[in-house]
């Protein structure tokens, strides 16, 4: 009778399957998400490298000539030296450059304000979830009231009170957004708080902030990722709207919203490129962030995967 050697399990040299890797893999399978992520990456790179790759710095008056104004896309400059890919605006600025710089500002403001609001919201949400009882009720009341008001009104009021300027716009954006984060974090934290591992940590005598930050928070990250992407898209749109209305960023920091606003009057005289191209850039930015956020939402919640 021959002895059968037991089969030795093959040593799998592949990387261990952490939740992040699993997430990345699931996301990679979603076509819409990958395309949007690709666009987003492209736009981010363009925005970050604007000073390096833009044909001209449109805000350096030395590089701008009024005689070049209102040239349509693909027109060549008067001295024949370069082509204006996307035309020029009313003051002679190259649209392509203006858009790149504008992208930088729009994306920057959107990301910074969302992250700052995230920080504030996380602190408030965790505090509310941990404290419970009346503190929680009070904080959530404030959150509810703020969330029932349209963001644009809140931003309006804040800007009326604070005045204009980059820092004030940022502050207004953060104050508008923190409530959503606070509510989401508090919801997720409450669910976690009632789980056994929190009780175990409390039993070990760990201080509250440590429990919340190092134990509860990491488990709330998943829905937070989705919320953050959505809020970034909202922040960018809101800032653009405010700038368009003239109550957002000052003229010295022209975001895409301001560019669109500047070009508005030219639309009626068929010089659409001054407004439309910045608009397209803005839409691409917001849509790609939204789609990535939406796909992340589906990937993070397997039940939604159709």
């Amino acid at each position: 009778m021959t002895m059968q050697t037991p089969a030795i399990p093959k040593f799998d040299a592949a990387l261990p399957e952490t939740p992040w890797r699993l997430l990345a893999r699931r996301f990679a399978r979603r076509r819409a998400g990958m395309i949007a992520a690709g666009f987003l990456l492209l736009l981010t790179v363009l925005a970050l490298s604007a000073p390096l790759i833009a044909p001209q710095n449109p805000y350096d008056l030395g590089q701008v000539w009024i005689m070049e104004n209102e040239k349509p896309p693909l027109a060549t400059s008067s001295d024949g030296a370069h082509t204006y890919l996307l035309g020029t605006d009313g003051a002679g600025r190259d649209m392509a450059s203006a858009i790149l710089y504008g992208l930088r500002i729009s994306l920057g403001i959107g990301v910074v304000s969302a992250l700052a609001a995230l920080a504030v919201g996380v602190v408030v949400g965790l505090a509310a979830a941990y404290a419970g009882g009346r503190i929680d009720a009070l904080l959530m009341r404030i959150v509810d009231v703020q969330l029932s008001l349209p963001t644009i009104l809140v931003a309006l009021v804040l800007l009326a009170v604070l005045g204009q300027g980059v820092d004030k716009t940022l502050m207004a954006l953060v104050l508008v957004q923190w409530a959503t984060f606070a509510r989401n974090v508090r919801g997720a934290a409450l669910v976690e708080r009632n789980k056994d591992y929190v009780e175990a940590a409390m039993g070990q005598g760990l201080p509250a902030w440590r429990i919340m930050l190092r134990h509860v928070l990491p488990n709330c990250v998943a829905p937070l990722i989705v919320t953050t992407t959505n809020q970034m898209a909202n922040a960018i749109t809101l800032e653009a709207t405010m700038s368009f209305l003239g109550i957002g960023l000052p003229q010295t920091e022209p975001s895409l919203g301001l560019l669109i606003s500047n070009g508005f009057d030219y639309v009626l005289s068929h010089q659409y490129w001054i407004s439309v191209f910045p608009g397209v850039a803005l839409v691409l930015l917001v849509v790609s962030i939204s789609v990535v956020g939406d796909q992340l939402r589906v990937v993070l919640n397997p039940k939604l995967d159709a």
Partner: protein
Amino acid sequence: MFDMLAKRALQSVLVLFIMSVLAFVGINLVGDPIYLLVPPDAPQAEIARAAQQLGLDLPVWQQYGRFLGNALHGDLGNSFIFNRPALHLIFERMPATLELAVMALLLSAAIGIPFGMWSGMHPGSLVQRLSSGFSILGVSVPVFWLGLILIMLFSVSLGWLPSGGRGPTRSLFGVEVSFLGWDGIKFMLLPALTLALHNIALIMRITEASTREVAGQEYVRFARAKGVGPLRLIARHIAPNVMIPVVTVLGLEFAHLIAFSLVTETIFAWPGMGKLIIDSLLQLDRPVVVAYLMVVLLLFVLINFVVDVLYLILDPRLRARSA
């Protein structure tokens, strides 16, 4: 049921009160309003006199008392720019904003609900996937850019619709409205559509989600098991249950529409409250800003209240719970 409504009414009053305090503080105490009337280099006597007139020399809580007292009499101060009562200015412009918001609401319901219901009942269909894509675009595209594109397309290129302003108005119960004739509606279409887009996308999404949930419920199968045909199934079993969350969202969104009309009115030069407020903000005409905020807040509270009542009417289960 009525004590629940009474509680809500009381809450609303409380919210209004808090808001009035915040508005007062924010607008009248931050910065120095006196310098809006009097140039900074004016002689002291003039500054003192102006301050006394405005009551700025009184203690804060007295100022608030005056503010509140006046407010309840309908006097929210005069506009610095127009030198007319701020509230009057607001009320003059309100019909224009309201008719735009109502038209946008109707458009959202008329487009969003049918598409949403179809998508919910036929998941995976072409209509559903298109609607899904549309709704993502709808919430992402900034309102003002959409307005721009619509103007470019329908006014500049095609010349079908006017690019701005409000059309000729007719009097309806003493209020000037422009929706009573095509010549007036012509001017309303583009702004209303622009305003409604975000809402259409939202309603589509909510209706689809609600329909999908309702269509999978046992009582739908139960109805089919007793022989109910597709039309009746939709009309009497699916739709009433779908509409419960949808109607509440529509109601709440109406408030948002009124707020967002700011942007639309700016783009289309529509003479409503929104345009007024932007101008006032830029020109630091604080009484008008305060008046606007109070009026809008009042509208909100009213709308929320109406939505609560509607919800009670639509869902009999709630009536029992609050009884």
